């Protein structure tokens, strides 16, 4: 005789668990949308190609000069899948008077949120070592190369966060050249700092008037930069004096810095007849990448 089983009616007995997941996940304010362009690739390996810039416009002497540009470096990014689940026995579910199962499912949501954030922050955490861009050098490196005729340029420093160093870095970034040594038209407008530098950065850019002064002057840096403080995941030094910091051009960053999401986080569940357990699982596949380094200037102090 056929019987009603939990696996056939799992929606009825477990419907609240999905809601718990959605609420937990939605509560978190991720930095990813603020810094990355989310993209949904249509193939497992994504190739990003940098293009060679055009040369300077010459004087017209009766004949048009046709420039010959060519492709530059190429970078590949591969899809990586992540999945994790919880199994709940019937007995536990029945006797769970204190909502342990709900908490576990909520913890599952937290784990996925943490993984996404840590993947994204890992891009900056490895900026001086393992995060590479299309020219195969680290994201922040002192001698980025060009294969289309441009000279080497650097975007790595070792200077502590201070008003003078912020201004010096801004001036250097403004002087970045394209891969054929043309003047760029993009200017830095954002600071990315870890928790240790939050207060200093806020003081630098948010106060309308100068602090620590009786004259209350206008603050030169006020409103010049947007501030992104990446709590917890941006790990760089234990004190403000050793913390890494980044100045970025947010427009250029959004253009090149991609959070590839082949499969956004999904939550699903099923009942298992043989063991009378229900399984709840999350799944996602994503990766981060940027072929370009010009949107960023990083300082690694220690």
């Amino acid at each position, binding site marked *: 005789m056929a019987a009603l089983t939990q696996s056939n009616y799992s929606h009825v007995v477990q419907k609240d668990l999905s809601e718990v997941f959605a609420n937990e996940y939605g509560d978190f304010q991720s930095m990813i949308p603020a810094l990355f362009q989310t993209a949904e690739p249509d193939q497992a390996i994504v190739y990003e190609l940098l293009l060679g810039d055009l040369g300077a416009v010459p004087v017209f002497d009766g004949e048009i000069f046709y420039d010959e540009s060519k492709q530059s470096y190429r970078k590949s990014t591969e899809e990586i899948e992540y*999945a994790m689940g919880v199994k709940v026995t019937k007995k536990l579910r029945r006797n769970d008077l204190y909502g342990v199962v709900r908490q576990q499912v909520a913890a599952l949501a937290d784990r996925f949120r943490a993984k996404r954030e840590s993947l994204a922050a890992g891009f900056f955490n490895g900026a001086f070592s393992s995060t590479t861009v299309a020219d195969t050098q680290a994201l922040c490196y002192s001698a980025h190369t060009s294969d289309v005729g441009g000279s080497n340029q650097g975007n790595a420093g070792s200077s*502590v966060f201070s008003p003078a160093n912020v201004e010096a870095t801004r001036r250097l970034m403004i002087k970045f050249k394209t891969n054929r040594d043309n003047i760029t038209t993009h200017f830095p407008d954002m600071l990315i700092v870890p928790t240790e530098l939050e207060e200093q950065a806020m003081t630098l850019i948010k106060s309308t008037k100068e602090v620590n002064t009786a004259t209350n002057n206008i603050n030169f840096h006020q409103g010049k930069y947007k501030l992104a403080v990446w709590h917890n995941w941006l*790990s760089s030094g234990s004190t403000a004096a050793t913390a890494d910091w980044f100045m970025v051009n947010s427009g250029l960053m959004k253009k090149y810095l991609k959070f590839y999401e082949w499969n956004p986080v999904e939550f699903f569940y099923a009942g298992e007849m043989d063991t009378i357990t229900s399984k709840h699982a999350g799944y996602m596949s994503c990766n981060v990448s940027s072929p370009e380094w010009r949107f960023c200037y990083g300082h690694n102090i*220690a």
Partner: protein
Amino acid sequence: MAVKRTYVRRNTEQKHAPVPIGPAEVQRRKEEIESKREYLEKLKSGGQMDDGTTAMQANNLDIGALEKQLNRDEQALKYLAPVEGNASEKRKAQKDFDEAKAYISSHALTLSEVGKYPKPNDPEKDADYGRAVEKSMTMEVGNPEFQKMCNQLKRAASIIDPNDPELRNVNRYRLER
């Protein structure tokens, strides 16, 4: 890559030698790799995680890319982690270290200059700030040689004592005034 690493890490004169990462970063990466490795193993076996959750079995999951990335992470850590030198290497590193330290001390903004702030209504202090910016442009942030010396100091420090995060802290060698 491992062979190259042996050569590069011991040679502080190598122009493009990577700067070894600091001890805190080594620890963070080790923990991340361990956690990923554990996750991967659980994916293979469907075993239970520390927090009571159970990893899915990877029957229908392509774990090849994850394995590849994990291997890359491990290789990168081997390549970038500081390795203490032998006596002779330490002597050589100490010389490089002292040279870099002297350069940094004489070129970096002083601690006093680091604290300078623009003050438009106080010409004297505003000029101090302006001088600090100009000094940073010519001698510190805008000076490629300064960055080279910082890298030299970090490389040498990692050979002398890879476990001392303060030794490679560039900020420590700024003069007071």
